[in-house]
């Protein structure tokens, strides 16, 4: 299978979302509020990094320029990452972490469901595996959203603040891109703009149950998937890429 630039961009976007959010979640390791959640968050970080490895390896093979998963993860600069800005934002607190996980994993479920029928057979296989993981993530995060939102005054306030902060970044998920149009025409994957309705149908009832007010859409737009990132991604990459940049080719 030879890949068009749009196909590659689409794969990088999928892989980078998983990689960057996986890196963010791994920051909780050893710091979560309780041991049980520490393990749960680390498990989910590992699920995402596993998805990223498959997707970036696949993208590297299709690209045919000799870049493997490590080259793509550790040797690209900020503007070459195609992840959503939502995935790179700092964790801040447990509420923001689980609200983001909820918003993102609900999106991943809608996406993997469609990609399981991709004309790219490798991508279809990755989607089949990842869908099971995403379904668990959305269940785990959704349960926490309900507990925090419908919990104490403090937990409700933090969950609502997290939702208010993160919600504007969800507009980017569904923004149309030229790559999406080409990929959808080739039946490789859906244009992400098609996923807003199933995503909202999954997200809004849980937010209602959590007694959280769903914010209105504003004019704010983020552009991470176009390679224009927030100030947070550079710091994340600085930490994630430090070892390969300092000791090129280091293995253990």
């Amino acid at each position: 299978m030879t890949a068009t630039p749009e196909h590659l961009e689409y794969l990088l976007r999928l892989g980078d979302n998983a990689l960057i959010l996986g890196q963010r979640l791994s920051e909780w390791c050893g710091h979560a509020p309780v041991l049980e959640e520490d393990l749960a968050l680390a498990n989910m970080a590992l699920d995402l990094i596993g998805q990223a490895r498959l997707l970036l390896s696949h993208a590297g093979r299709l690209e045919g320029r000799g870049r493997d998963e490590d080259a793509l993860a550790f040797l690209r600069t900020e503007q070459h990452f195609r992840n959503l800005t939502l995935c790179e934002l700092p964790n801040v607190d447990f509420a923001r972490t689980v609200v983001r996980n909820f918003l993102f994993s609900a999106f991943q479920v809608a996406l993997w469901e469609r990609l399981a029928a991709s004309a790219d057979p490798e991508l279809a296989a990755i989607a089949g595996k990842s869908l099971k993981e995403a379904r668990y993530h959305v269940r785990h995060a959704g349960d926490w959203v309900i507990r925090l939102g419908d919990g104490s005054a403090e937990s409700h306030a933090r969950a609502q603040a997290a939702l208010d902060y993160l919600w504007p970044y969800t507009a980017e998920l569904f923004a149309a891109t030229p790559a999406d149009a080409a990929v959808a025409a080739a039946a490789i994957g859906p244009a992400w703009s098609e996923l807003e309705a199933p995503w909202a149908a999954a997200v809004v009832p849980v937010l209602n149950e959590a007694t959280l007010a769903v914010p209105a859409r504003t004019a704010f737009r983020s552009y991470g998937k176009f390679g224009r990132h927030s100030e947070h991604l550079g710091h994340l990459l600085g930490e994630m890429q430090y070892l390969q940049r300092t000791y090129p080719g280091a293995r253990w």
Partner: protein
Amino acid sequence: MERKEWPLWEVFIRSRNGLDHKHCGSVHAPDARLALQVARDVYTRRQEGVSIWVVEARHIVASDPDAKPELFDPAEDKIYRHPTFYRLPEEVDHM
């Protein structure tokens, strides 16, 4: 700051080839649903099981360790309670 601990849940896992759920440890969780989830995350990350039971620890009624002598020691010299003194017909061997 007031610190409320979540209740303790005992976790039982049935392995892929196992017929029974075996006690494997405990977790803290605010309710049954989350207890199942954290048990999944803590105790089945390496394919240890295909089914989980959780029971809130306070619902388990345990025998008194101090009553061990009267509860268990008397069975020590009742070897005739093991079915090794009977000759079984061929058909029911390996019972």
